């Protein structure tokens, strides 16, 4: 009987060891998979950041081109405004009957010119989309850098690759005030303290 007990115990130990071996084998495979994932990640993250950075640069370049065109148009508008002024001055040389009509015509043309100049200014301010999208892309790049840093730490812990130094600030989740009105309300509330 003691022999049977001993055999039972050995059988149980064998089964336990077999299970443990399977577990270790699975863990090993998992770590191998993790290693390839980490290696791919360490290659892909910098690539993604590089692309995002390029997008920011391209946007800036495009916005600068548009601004240059707008600046040229504004100069032309200013020139047109001066010419309309000179045109109105010719009214003095016209017969009295047609003078008022001529002045009104020059004035209308100048009004159209001013209106389209105002539209150009709106396009100018709309171009700040570049700054806004650029700042958002920077936050995305910062988030990627954070993940990259964690992956690098993981890689270092498991001895896959040397840890890569990644800094960049963490993107903060904050409650955004919806618009200028909200900001103005806050300013109004705080006025009397330190704003002018």
């Amino acid at each position, binding site marked *: 009987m003691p022999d049977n007990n001993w055999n039972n115990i050995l059988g149980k130990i064998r089964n336990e060891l077999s299970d443990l071996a399977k577990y270790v084998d699975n863990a090993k495979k998992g770590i191998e998979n993790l290693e390839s994932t980490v290696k791919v990640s360490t290659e892909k993250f910098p690539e993604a950041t590089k692309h995002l950075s390029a997008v920011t640069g391209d946007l800036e370049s495009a916005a600068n081109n548009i601004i240059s065109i707008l600046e040229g148009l504004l100069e032309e508008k200013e020139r047109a405004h001066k010419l309309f002024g000179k045109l109105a001055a010719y009214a003095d040389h016209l017969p009295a009957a047609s003078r008022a009509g001529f002045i009104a015509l020059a004035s209308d043309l100048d009004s159209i010119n001013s209106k389209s100049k105002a539209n150009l200014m709106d396009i100018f301010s709309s171009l700040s989309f570049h700054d806004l999208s650029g*700042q958002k892309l*920077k936050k995305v790049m910062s988030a990627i850098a954070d993940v990259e840093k964690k992956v690098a730490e993981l890689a270092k812990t498991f001895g896959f690759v040397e840890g890569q130094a990644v800094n960049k600030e963490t993107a903060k989740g904050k409650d955004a005030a919806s618009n200028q009105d909200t900001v103005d309300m806050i300013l109004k509330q705080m006025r009397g303290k330190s704003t002018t």
Partner: protein
Amino acid sequence: MLDINMKILVVDDFSTMRRIIKNILRELGYYNVEEAEDGAVAFEKLKGGGFDFVVTDWNMPNMPGIDLLKAIRADESLMHIPVLMVTAESQKENVVQAVEAGVNNYIVKPFTATALKERIDLILEKAKSAQ
């Protein structure tokens, strides 16, 4: 004395934003405008003297706008200069921080030429009435 000839420093890390603000200011009649790409460069320029007004972004490398504002308010020769913050940071905590640091007004991007004019006028009016 603050007037249409006042010298304005526009501080933003994006060249496009500096050009946009500069053009809008020019359209509003302010032609004496200089630029700086971050707070540190701006502070150096301000220390050189001659500036009457600062329009600054918040998020910039080297020295962010809020630190520039604090540096201006901490400097005896610069503390009188009005500072208008033009930024994408519209969170309440940012506005409160800027007000506590002594900002004169605050504009959220994107903004219109009219909005910029209104705030500059407001700052100048208050500065004049305080004199």
